[in-house]
């Protein structure tokens, strides 16, 4: 009962998105083939009750656990569909998409990386923010160094790792440090958030500035410490349907699931904040 009602609502949204996509396509007319758009439109209308086919979702590495769960749920709700994920650094994924990788949906960890895709006109519509992520300090279990604030990380002798400023978690960390007027010299600028977390998990570093979701996913191997400056560096996660989507209808349905209350519940459980 409930599900069918929701589906109806989603169908309306879907149709709306399809129109929006159409408009977006015709707006940037020159290169894109309008037939693709017109072909997609009736498909969006007719398949409202019956979704099928496989889709490929490129998603930021931090979404791995929750998206995998959502993908299973989607396949359960829509028998005959299949969701394949490619998790990785948002930048690599964006580079892949602009390089022609076959993907239907892109969920990035920052608007900046999404902008790479939208900038190349590879998205089939404006991206929507579906979750936000906040920074947290990951310390060794039991917090032996008594880290309670971002300022504590600047103590000498403490080995701290940050993400490199070229990746979202690093940029966010710099923003938070700037907000607190702090200067922190880490032992390493890690290539991605998982590497930063691994250094703490292996006890090579005493602390790392990572996302809440990563601390949550790491379980008992690290301990999270929240800090107020993180509010200044909240990371928006945008999601978008891609222009080269092979299965736009199903892809849109998946995006809708992600943005639905049901999807949000899975995501918040993983430590994400609602947009």
């Amino acid at each position, binding site marked *: 009962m409930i599900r069918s009602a929701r589906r109806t609502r989603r169908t309306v949204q879907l149709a709306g998105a399809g129109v929006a996509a159409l408009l977006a396509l015709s707006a940037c007319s020159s290169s894109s083939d309008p037939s693709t758009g017109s072909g997609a439109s009736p498909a969006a209308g007719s398949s409202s009750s019956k979704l099928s086919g496989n889709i490929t979702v490129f998603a930021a590495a931090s979404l791995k656990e929750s998206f995998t769960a959502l993908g299973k749920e989607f396949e359960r709700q829509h028998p005959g569909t299949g969701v394949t994920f490619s998790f990785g650094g948002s930048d690599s994924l964006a580079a892949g998409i602009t390089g022609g990788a076959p993907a239907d949906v892109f969920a990035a960890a920052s608007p900046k990386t999404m902008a790479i895709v939208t900038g190349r006109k590879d998205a089939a519509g404006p991206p929507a923010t579906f979750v936000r992520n906040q920074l947290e300090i990951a310390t060794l279990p039991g917090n032996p160094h008594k880290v309670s604030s971002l300022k504590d990380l600047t103590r000498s002798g403490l080995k701290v790792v940050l993400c490199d400023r070229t990746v979202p978690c690093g940029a966010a960390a710099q923003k938070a440090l700037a907000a607190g007027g702090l200067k922190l010299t880490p032992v390493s600028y*890690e290539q991605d958030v998982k*590497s930063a977390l691994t250094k703490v998990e*292996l006890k*090579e570093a005493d602390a790392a500035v990572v996302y809440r979701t990563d601390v949550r996913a790491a379980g008992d191997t690290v301990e999270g410490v929240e800090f107020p400056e993180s509010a200044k560096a909240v990371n928006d996660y945008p999601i978008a349907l891609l222009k080269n989507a092979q299965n736009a209808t199903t892809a849109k349905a998946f995006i809708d699931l992600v943005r639905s209350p049901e999807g949000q519940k899975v995501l918040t459980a993983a430590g994400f904040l609602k947009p």
Partner: protein
Amino acid sequence: MTSTDSSPAAARADRPRRGHPSRGAPLPLLVPALVGLAFLLLPLLALLVRAPWRSLPSELTSPEVWQALRLSLVTATLATAVSLALGVPLAWLLARTDFPGRALVRALVTLPLVLPPVVGGVALLLALGRNGVVGQWLDAWFGITLPFTTAGVVVAEAFVAMPFLVISVEGTLRAADPRFEEAATTLGASRFTAFRRVTLPLIAPGIAAGAVLAWARALGEFGATITFAGNFPGRTQTMPLAVYLALQNDPAAAIALSLVLLVVSVAVLAGLRDRWMTTS
């Protein structure tokens, strides 16, 4: 040397020398050879074609680039030195002695070749990290911690590069006539003296080739380095790390950096080749 002289001393010198004019390569060899060459060079060519030539000067004047390049050259050279110091004796052991489980040891030596470098980096952390199997004692007794240090970069690079040297030198040793060592022994040389004064000079070209391979591998090493030694400009950020991170938000800069790395390594390799490999 005359062609009628059939003594083995002369015959050995009759090995085909590089640079002989070929009598036209047969097509079944020529075609795949050219395809192979194109396959190897095309990506490099693409890099050149798409290089941001206009902004290149400004990309290259940043001190961070030179810092990373200098660090790369220094660490790759040190890693090669470490590989030589440990790898040549290891190659000798594998080639010239017989001990139980030698085949297994040889297989283990080549393990870093098949191990994804990132896994290699994690393994190094587990072994030599602050909390590692051996590393915790290094830390407790000598206050030495390798992760996040330049020494750590050298360790990571040597770990990945040394197998190339060992394999190359072992192959050369196997091909070298062990009786030269015996001849030296009968003249009063200890086994070590025989190795140092006879075997080593004989296999010098093989060692040089192995060292060049190891150096090149160390120079390009990324995964194990960033995992084990982290990434900090001037200390552990080598060129490949700088390239990778630049790629995250500035592909043009990454291409520029790659070009620098390419030009420098081609220059060094070509220079070494002229010096070492044509004297044999």
